[in-house]
């Protein structure tokens, strides 16, 4: 078996908007004499769009129509159509996510970008996608150490930290190249938090001032220093805590970062020495990059070359969001695809006994109702150790008892399991419910409470489903 699916990634960031098309190669890695083991074996970015400035109507509103035209134009250039896309992600990142009409833009785009495309935003997910696009996950595995990627964009810096290929932390700070903007030699905008930071540090800078390199360097030096503090490469000062986006949490101080990659628009100015007009992008990105490069605290960690710099997030969105669940699963074709389904997680402790499985589902279900009416929810657990036929029957009974409300309701019973038991469990539930309820039971997917999940239409001759898990609260 060899199949290719197309994936689209769109990133609408604070300063730039980009798009990539990728091919995901799916193969059965088992022999034909055993139960199939179907995986994504290769990810190829086949088209990279131009890098556009994100079109804005006003400082607080994205120009949805222009974004749409821009995406459509790129589809045309690449000779692709939305209907060809099996999966992908549209993400609004950085400061743009705080714009008033972010959600409106996302929903407009998600229809345009294919049938099954994620529409989401969130600093933690962005950190993960950028780190994977930059290749920090791969480096950490290769070197068996802790590698952090800093995606220094226009409005925020997203940090994703990997240890031996495993995500161990994300963090997001309000530090970026376009938090101070310039035009014709004057400063035209300063983000309030940066204005405070400057004042508290005794740097006199305000809108309308001439954009002097010395003054800007002084504040960028402090911004760079705060990034080093965020990585725990030097002790954190009193001002540090206030710089996290949405009052997010810092990384643990003992995280032990050994190497770094940089991505985002500012990254190229970190990797290479700069000359020429320091304000050539009408912002302070070039100077910020330069100050990061010079900052001695960063020299404590090894600087590695990122696989992608300015395109890291969009490449991450286009290639690293999709997982595959199969090939021993149960699903109801007519109920797919489904998007943005909240995960109701049964914890490891609650999984230990049947009664706690039931009570956990029952107790949590009301949280996922809106105005007393049921909504689609995905019930998730690990299933570890429950692999005998008897265990499966017991588990099926417990799920049925706990989720009676879902079974009586209008939405399919959706189960997301880590251990490879989905098909047996799905069959068991179907038999016990006399095939009267639509059941979608998938496995090989790890989730945590608070995640959202999308399940796409079947691929690989119907044997597997593309799945996207959106982790939005990793660090809060």
């Amino acid at each position, binding site marked *: 078996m060899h199949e290719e699916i197309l994936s689209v990634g769109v990133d609408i960031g604070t300063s730039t908007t980009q798009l990539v098309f990728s091919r995901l190669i799916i193969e059965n890695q088992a022999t034909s004499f055993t139960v199939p083991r179907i995986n994504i074996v290769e990810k190829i970015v086949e088209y990279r769009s131009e890098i556009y400035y994100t079109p804005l109507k006003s400082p607080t509103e994205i120009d949805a129509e222009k974004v749409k035209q821009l995406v459509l134009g790129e589809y045309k250039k690449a000779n692709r159509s939305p209907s060809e896309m099996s999966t992908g992600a549209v993400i609004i990142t950085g400061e743009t996510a705080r714009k008033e009409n972010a959600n409106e833009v996302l929903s407009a785009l998600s229809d345009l970008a294919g049938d099954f495309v994620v529409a989401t935003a969130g600093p933690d997910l962005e950190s993960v996608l950028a780190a994977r696009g930059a290749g920090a996950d791969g480096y950490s595995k290769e070197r068996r150490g802790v590698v952090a990627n800093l995606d220094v964009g226009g409005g925020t810096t997203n940090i994703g930290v990997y240890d031996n290929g495993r995500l161990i932390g994300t963090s997001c700070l309000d530090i970026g190249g376009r938090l101070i903007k310039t035009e014709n030699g004057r400063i035209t905008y300063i983000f309030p938090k940066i204005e405070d930071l400057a004042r508290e540090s005794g740097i006199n800078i305000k809108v309308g001032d001439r954009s002097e390199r010395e003054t800007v360097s002084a504040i960028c030096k402090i911004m760079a220093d705060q990034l080093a503090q965020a990585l725990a490469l030097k002790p954190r000062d009193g001002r540090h805590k206030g710089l996290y986006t949405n009052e997010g949490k810092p990384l643990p101080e003992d995280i032990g970062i050994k190497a770094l990659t940089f991505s985002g628009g500012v990254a190229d100015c970190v990797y290479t020495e700069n000359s020429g007009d320091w304000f050539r992008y009408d912002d302070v990105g070039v100077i910020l990059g330069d100050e990061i490069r010079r900052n001695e605290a960063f020299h404590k960690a090894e600087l590695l070359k990122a696989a992608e710099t300015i395109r890291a997030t969009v490449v991450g969105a286009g290639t690293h969001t999709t997982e595959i669940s199969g090939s021993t699963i149960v699903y109801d074709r007519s109920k797919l695809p489904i998007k943005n389904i909240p995960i109701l997680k049964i914890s490891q402790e609650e999984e230990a006994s049947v009664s706690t499985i039931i009570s956990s589902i029952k107790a949590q279900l009301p949280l996922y109702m809106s105005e007393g009416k049921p909504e689609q929810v995905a019930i998730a657990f690990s299933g570890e150790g429950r692999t*005998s*036929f008897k265990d499966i029957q017991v588990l099926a009974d417990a799920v049925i008892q706990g989720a009676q409300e879902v079974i009586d309701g209008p939405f399919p019973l959706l189960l997301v399991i880590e251990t490879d038991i989905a098909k047996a469990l799905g069959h068991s539930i179907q038999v016990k419910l006399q095939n009267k309820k639509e059941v979608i039971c998938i496995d090989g997917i790890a989730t945590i409470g608070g995640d959202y999940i999308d399940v796409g239409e079947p691929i690989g001759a119907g044997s597997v489903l593309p799945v996207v898990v959106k982790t939005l609260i990793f660090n809060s």
Partner: protein
Amino acid sequence: MEKNLKAIIEQVLREMNITPGSGADLAASAVASAIEQANTSVVEDGFIPDVTEVDIKTQYLVEDAENKEAYAELKSYAPCRLAIGKAGARHKTDPSLQFRAAHSAAQDAVFNDVDQDFVDNMGFFTIQTQCENKDVYLTRPDLGRKLSDEAVDVIKEKCKKNPTVQIYVSDGLSSAAVAANVSDLLPGILQGLQSYKIDVGTPFFVKYGRVGAMDQISEITGADVTCVLIGERPGLITAESMSAYIAYKATVGMPEARRTVVSNIHRSGSVPVEAGAHIAEIIKTMLEKKASGTDLKL
């Protein structure tokens, strides 16, 4: 001369900061305590560690490894006898005991019979091929593919006629595989078929059976699909591996290529209950496409 020598020794001992006589005393007391230890044997309530309990995927025995972590990670993917170190030119004691234990388990799986209580508890009746005993079974594969006359009669008498699916269990080359997997694998298949609303015949157990016996059973029962769950020839990784051979309208003398197989069913391979669910779906597809083996694209 002697006096001279004594003086030299005394001088050396003095330089070594040892007073004369104490060295000899030390040696004598060491010998005494060794003898005392040897004479008082101690009975402990313990066990010598069971070599078969060792998880070969996590055992790493190379001394002074260049990159232990990387090698250990490679090992975690498969239970191979790698990175087991060496003592001179030979294996270490632990891996060589493990190897012999695995070899014994493989031999036991082949030479032992399936426990009759297990077969009875599963609710199976037992029939036999034309092999009279294990020796005949192992030396005459052809007889393992043919049912005894009595067996044919029992099937005719006890089995549902013309079922959609006929499933049965056979010892094949591993009795251990039957004991380890059937109680999860078979219900897994049956429940899957039930969820697809597919009718199943009467299951039973065939002693001294080879895969080919399914063709004759297919002809006798008149099933559309016949499926045998049979013990695989054991290896040194596991003696409990089971295969399912499945064929659409199998007939005696048909090409082997008409069989579909799902192999490597055991607790550290394809988990039995999930493999069962998968086999149920294969059977469903087989009935839809009216084909099996290489004729059936899964």
